[in-house]
Each structure stands twice: as C-alpha cells, then as structure tokens.
C-alpha cells in the first residue's frame, strides 16, 4: 500500500511538469498531495492525514482561481514550459534528494522502546508542542491577524478611498459592492 501510494505521488508529481494544460497540472498536483496525505493516514495519523487531504484539495481549487487571474495566455490549450532556470533546478533537486536520502538511510535511528500510545495523535501533539502549548495557541490568532493585515495593506483602496476623507460616508464606494454594504 505504501509503495503504491508512493508511486502514485511521484508519478503525478512528474505529470505536473509533463502535461500541457495548466488545469491538468493543478489537479495532477492535487493527486500527488492526496497520495501523500493517504501515506500519512497509513502512519495512523488519522487527523493529520485527513486534514492534509482536505487542505490540498481546497488549495488546488483556489489555485485554479489564481491561475486564470495571473496567467497571461490561455493556460489550458497551449503547450508551455513550466520550468524556470532548468539546469540549476535539476542540480538543486538531485542534490537535495541525495542529501535527504543519504540521511534517511545512513543515520543510525534509535530502536523503538515500548509500544506506541493508543491515542497517537494526542501523544504526537504533546511531544511536539509539550510545554509550549499555550504559545502555539496564541500563535494562530496572530497568524490570522497577520494574513488579514497583509491583505489590508495590499488592497489598492483603503478606508479613505471607500468612505471619503472624513470617514463619514454612509455606504462604501466600491466598484463591486459586497452584499451587506459594509
């Protein structure tokens, strides 16, 4: 099972660069990620595996939105080269693979002592985050605030454009009004 998932993941990863159509590349990438998520499921990390699959499918769907937004040429019907700086990329990729593969094979991993915890996810969480649990919980709203702040900073029209110089405009002046009028 593990090997077949691995083959699927690598094959669809290769397909991302081989197919002509951007839409097919996007969804080949999705298949690759789903295979990786299924591999995580095999490691009995149920929650992490399912969330990986969920997030990856959603991300590929959202990538389709950006694909049309930013690709200048019709990205689906013309053959196109997806790689930039071909030679250096190949060298970097092969070198990284060799390094990590050598590490995986040659490092003396410790022997397993005892049996895994019945609730593997909880045990994994506690080991990873342990005493820093409170810090991790504070980080996520900070991350959300950062994302929102980034979007606000990047938006071309600010509060003063939308509500007027004294911020007293009743209705926001948007080219495309939202449904609630805020």
């Amino acid at each position, binding site marked *: 099972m593990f090997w077949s998932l691995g083959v699927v993941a690598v094959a669809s990863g290769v397909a991302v660069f081989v197919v002509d159509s951007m839409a097919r590349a996007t969804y080949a990438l999705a298949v690759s990620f789903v295979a990786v998520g299924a591999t995580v499921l095999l490691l009995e990390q149920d929650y992490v595996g399912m969330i990986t699959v969920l997030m990856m499918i959603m991300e590929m769907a959202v990538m389709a939105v950006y694909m*049309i*937004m*930013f690709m*200048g*040429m*019709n990205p689906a*019907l*013309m*053959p196109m080269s997806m790689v930039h700086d071909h030679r250096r990329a190949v060298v970097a990729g092969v070198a990284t693979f060799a390094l990590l593969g050598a590490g995986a094979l040659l490092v003396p991993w410790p022997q397993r002592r005892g049996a895994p915890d019945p609730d593997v996810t909880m045990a994994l969480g506690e080991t990873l985050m342990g005493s820093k649990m409170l810090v991790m919980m504070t980080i996520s709203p900070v991350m959300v605030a950062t994302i929102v702040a980034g979007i606000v900073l990047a938006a*071309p029209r600010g509060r003063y454009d939308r509500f007027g110089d004294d911020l007293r405009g009743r209705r926001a002046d948007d*080219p*495309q*009004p939202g*449904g609630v009028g805020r």
Partner: protein
Amino acid sequence: MDVRARLTSAAVRAAHVLVVEAPGGWRERFAAERAAAARGWTPAASPADADVLVVCGAPGDDLAALLDRVWDQLPGPRARAQVRSPTGAGQALAEAAALLADERHQRRDARERRQEPAPLHGDMDHGGTDHGGMDHGDMAPAGIPLASGGPDRDGLEMDVLHLSLGPVLPSWPAGLVLDVALQGDVVVSAEARHVGGPTAEGHHGLEPPERAAYRVDGVARLLDLAGWPDAASRARRTRDVLLDGDSATGHRLLVGLRSRVGRSRLLRWQLRGLGPPGRPDVHDRLLRALARAVDDLGRDAGDPGDGTSEDGGAGPDGLASATVGLELAAVRLVVAAADLDRLPTRREVVGG
C-alpha cells in the same frame, strides 16, 4: 420491445423544449410555452439540454441561419417545430412529440446529421481535420484563436473573451444580440444589434388585458433569471389566465403575485442597486411593471394606457452602455429589467 416502447414514451413525456422567439412572435411564444407546460415538458436552459426546438413566429434569413447552428447543437433524439400562429402551438408540439418517439426517423437523423461543428466563418474554414494536428506554435488550436490580454479594472492584465449573448438564450429579448468583451465574467465593452429584422417604433395598440399579460410575461422572465422558478411559473400561469380573458381570476392572481414578489426581502437584497446609477434599479422596475399590469387591468377596452417606457426609451445603445462594468448575472438582470418597460411595437403586434 414493450420495455423499449415504454422507455421511449417516458422519455418523450419528459422532453425539454428550447423555445425561440422570432421578433414579433411573442403571442406564439406564449402559446408554445403554455402548450409545453400543459404536456409536462420543461423549458431547456441550453441547446444541449433540449430535445425539441420550437421556433415561434417567422424568423428572418439571418435568424434562420443561426437557428440551423443551434439545431446542430441539439444532441438528439431531437425534433423541430414551427409555431406560426398561437392556435397552432398544441398541434406543432404534438407533431414534435410524435417525431421524437419515431425511432426510425431519429436513427436516420442521427446518420445524416453533421458530426462536426460547422465552420465559424467562410474564410476561417481551413479544410478541417488535417489542421488540427499541426497546432504547435500556432496560436489557434482547432482553428479558434486564443484570447489576447488587456488591462482589467484593477490594472492587472487579463484575457479578453469575446462572447455574443443571444439571440437564442432563455429569457432573453427576442432578436437582440449583445456582443460583449468579457474579462472573467465582467463586461468591459458591449455592442447591441438586432437579428431577424429591425423593430419599428409606433403606437402599440394592445388591449389592456393583453398589455397586462405581456408585462407579466416580462416579470416571469426576470424572476426566472433571479433564480426563483416557482414565482416565475406562477407569473406565467397568471399570464395565461389574463390572455384567456378571465379578468376576475387574473386580477386575483396578479395581486397575489405582486404581494408575494414585493414581500420577498431576499429578492430585494439580490436585485437592489443593479443598473445604471441615478435610474430605477432592477427591483424598482420589477415592482413598477407589476403595478402597471394591475393598473392596466383596471382600464377599459381601448384605453391606450401610459406610453412606452418613462425612462425615455434607452434603446439598444443605451442598453449596451448600461451593461459595461457589470458581471454576467447583473447584465442578464439589467437587460431583462430594461425589457420590462418595452411593450411590443406596432410591427410586432401586426405579426412581423
């Protein structure tokens, strides 16, 4: 073969009809829609969905050529019907149903029809299939040129797609073609033209009940576009009752429809603010059309009522400029709302 016959009759019972109105054929269209609903047939949303193509009225040459292309797109089994007069609608549909059920006819049709789409324009006919394999480096796969880019309203570059809306589109004014340039689904430029003959201006001369029925039909089309099929079919039933001449029931149904549509806050939320600024928006036009229909019912025979639109008659160019900057759903609603103010002109009443 009894099973096959039963399946065929079941399939014919649930046929989907694509009703096309030639300019001036509005009476025929009302009759055709009524006959189709009486048979339990559903209106088709697109040619791929349709089994029966019903042409109402007399199409001109250009519209007839377009209708042939639409006919090619019906997947089959398919049947074509021509409704030349309101009373002939039932008969035309019955003949279409018989053709649909006729297996031999359908098999022959399947053998003899075009299997490939017809070329778009004469000069782009590159001789077909041998060109399809050679489109590397050629910016036109399958003979259709790729979209080129242009700046969009945020200043980014985005592909521009040229699309022709109409004349065969459900709930679309007859004979109107709106050539739009789309970026995403936002219209950046639009041009309107007419197919199937120009409409003449002039006094309409419809009797009040027929006027009310025409207005209610416009309301039904707008409600269909607003995604409320129940209210739309209610409006169409009201229209049929009004056409029958039954004023008492018609008035009751119409008042009921008006209050139902006016009460719907969700509809108001969706339709408010659509349309050129400073003019009544789509929701206001909808309510105004219903109010005028009720008003028409209260008039005596021969009373011309108020004239055509009070807006000063936008006309096709005004319509095209009103749709720039809107996205497709808003364009459909604005066009349908603008159509609410129109009454059929003299040429259309006489029967085009």
